[in-house]
């Protein structure tokens, strides 16, 4: 039976499930970033001149920028020259079918439970898998093609749909946006690309699965999703990494563009390796995610379940440009051991009658530190804009921390902005009550956590919600003895 100290101890003792390493021959660039690394990457990927130039502009901007200092945690020194910026499974060429994929790699994906092989994909989820830096396979491509939907690796999109890539790349997150976005612009290796044509409702969930495998590599993928007028897409993203003593950097960029009447739902279940209980190792998850509702009545919704990473530092945002457009952000972030999360969202209300809704649920255990940081900005033209923000924090034990930093800037007095915040603890009373009904402490905590996070989990597509629920339980397993 757990008193608070035991709770903390037990959480600390739970090990990371996905910490295996796959032994595959890799093509790796030497560590360090300079003009020639960037040219190397660009050349490897047979990129057009304009893209190489864009990368170089990104690199220039990266060199000019300093690491930020406003975050609510001590940022460990990062030696950008020690990281290898390109690692790809060694192979002859592009895969035409799954049979050509390294069986080791397929075994890895099987271990992760990804429905990579099309025969097995009964769930109806189209998956793009990014292994270290390179997109390995995209399932269901043909079926999507019939509808005019493009779902492929970023590299492929550059080759086959350069006009779309050139038009939208960097249009939401510019190459100079912030130091990590600039680094990504310079060194991004692959990622996913989605285009939903006018009036098409994507009939299945599109999904990307990211995995960092090789030591001393960073993962800098880039995702670009464009939903043309009156279209709809739901996109899922999942991630894991092996256990390493060294920290690994993950600096991804996600750009979403929703045109008139279009809707994009973007869901993330992030389970990167969080480091061990002393805080050694783990992924630095420094990601820039931003969407723009370009047209009227467009809608973008971010849902994230963040259980992994040593440090999670990201603010999926929405620019509400079109009148009557709406943005949503639903988040559950769990920190335990020495994990840190500084996450939240930014909602930029530009158009009239724009709406945003923010539901953030932080869960801290062990010595974890969880910060919600959010900005709601109402522009002078955004008449009748509305925002509702709720950030709740749940504490397990008394060595963890929860913080909220809500910022509101309004230049229009017809706007309505609401903010609610609560902090609660999982009480021994709650656990005992459930014990007394025959439920053991482990299940009791899982039940309480899932109840707490329900509003967010409800936003996830069904299969993913079940997955996330399990992940939350596993993450906090052993939270009471």
């Amino acid at each position, binding site marked *: 039976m757990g008193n608070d100290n035991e709770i903390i101890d037990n959480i600390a003792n739970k090990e990371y499930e996905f910490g295996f390493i796959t032994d595959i021959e890799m093509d790796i660039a030497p560590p360090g970033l300079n003009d020639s690394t960037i040219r190397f990457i660009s050349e490897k990927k047979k990129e057009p001149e304009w893209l190489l130039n864009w990368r170089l502009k990104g690199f220039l901007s990266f060199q000019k920028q300093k690491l930020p200092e406003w975050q609510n945690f001590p940022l460990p020194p990062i030696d950008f020259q020690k990281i290898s910026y390109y690692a790809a499974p060694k192979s002859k060429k592009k895969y035409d079918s799954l049979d050509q994929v390294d069986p080791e790699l397929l075994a890895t994906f099987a271990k992760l439970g990804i429905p990579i092989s099309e025969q097995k994909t009964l769930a109806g989820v189209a998956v793009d898998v990014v292994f270290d830096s390179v997109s390995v396979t995209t399932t269901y491509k043909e079926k999507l093609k019939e509808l005019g939907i493009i779902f492929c690796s970023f590299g492929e999109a550059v080759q086959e749909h350069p006009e779309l890539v050139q038009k939208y790349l960097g249009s939401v997150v510019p190459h100079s946006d912030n130091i990590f976005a600039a680094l990504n612009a310079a060194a991004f290796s692959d990622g996913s690309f989605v285009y939903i044509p006018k009036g098409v409702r994507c009939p299945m969930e599109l999904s990307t699965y990211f995995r960092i495998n090789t030591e001393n590599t960073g993962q800098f993928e880039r995702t670009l999703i464009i939903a043309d007028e009156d279209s709809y897409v739901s996109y899922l993203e999942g991630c894991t990494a092996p256990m390493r003593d060294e920290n690994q950097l993950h600096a991804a960029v996600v750009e979403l563009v929703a045109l008139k009447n279009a809707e994009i739902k973007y869901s993330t279940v992030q389970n990167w390796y969080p480091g061990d209980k002393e805080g050694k190792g783990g992924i630095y998850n420094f990601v820039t995610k931003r969407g723009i509702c370009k047209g009227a009545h467009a809608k973008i919704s971010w849902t994230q379940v963040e259980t992994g990473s040593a440090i999670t530092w990201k603010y999926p945002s929405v620019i509400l440009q079109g009148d009557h457009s709406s943005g949503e952000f639903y988040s559950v972030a769990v920190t335990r051991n020495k994990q840190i999360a500084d996450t939240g969202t930014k909602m930029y209300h530009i158009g009239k009658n724009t709406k945003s809704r923010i539901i953030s649920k932080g869960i801290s255990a062990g010595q974890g530190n969880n910060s919600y940081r959010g900005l709601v900005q109402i522009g002078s033209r955004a008449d009748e804009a509305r925002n509702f923000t709720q950030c709740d924090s749940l504490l397990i034990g008394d060595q963890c921390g929860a913080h909220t930093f809500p910022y509101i800037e309004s230049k229009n007095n017809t706007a309505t902005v609401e903010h609610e915040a609560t902090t609660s603890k999982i009480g021994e009373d709650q656990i005992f*009550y459930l*014990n007394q009904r025959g439920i053991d402490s482990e299940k009791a905590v899982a039940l309480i956590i899932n109840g707490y996070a329900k509003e967010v989990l409800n936003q996830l597509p069904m299969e993913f919600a079940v997955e996330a629920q399990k992940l939350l339980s596993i993450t906090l397993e052993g939270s009471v003895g």
Partner: protein
Amino acid sequence: MLIIKNLHAEIEGKPILKGINLTVNPGEVHAIMGPNGSGKSSLASVLAGRENYEVTQGEVYFKGANLLDMSPEVRAREGVFLAFQYPIEIPGVSNINFLKTAMAEIRTHRKLPALDAKEFLRLSKEKQKLVEFDAALVNRSLNEGFSGGEKKRNEIFQLAMLEPTLSILDETDSGLDIDALRIVSKGVNKLRSEINAFIIITHYQRLLEYIVPDFVHVLYDGRIVRSGSKELALELEEKGYDWLKDEVREKEAREKVGI
């Protein structure tokens, strides 16, 4: 069913129970009364296995097994049910899902087959009716925003669902108006049987007008100082507890000087 022998327990080093002896047989209803701070709720907590109590002496057997060796959840699965004086709120967890989880755990432990969704629903409807529990509350978050009376009635609904052999009602009557009291009592009376037993902890005789006990015990300063039939409750109602306190004090004084 339940045998308590010379039970001593303390909380943060402070003795609360100082030698409780009590035997409860199947089919019996025992009322435990006593002034505030006499240890009534502590006894309920110790039997349910609340961890901040430390048992320093004595034994408790439940259906022949050592109850004190069991974790709280095992006690519950074995058939000990505590209706809480202050039922706990758990936001976001629906009443019915919580019960489904509890039921599954208990049935697995008792080696009963799992109930399918349809059977569970049927049973839930049947028990709701039995204890007059509002169907709207079944799907709400567990006790969240429930009134005091609704919480207590939820305890009785859970009791009906989980079918324990020993039910301990810890001041279930406190905070209930007369109508709620009547409904709760009616529920309990319907659940009484030859094979189960109840320990009813109460401050007032009022509840015992509705749930008629076989035995009444008076707890004072961590000990049962008097046991009797249901008439004892009436006597207490009439005379209060002071005369008993005096009696105990006198007895202690006599013991001290060896008379």
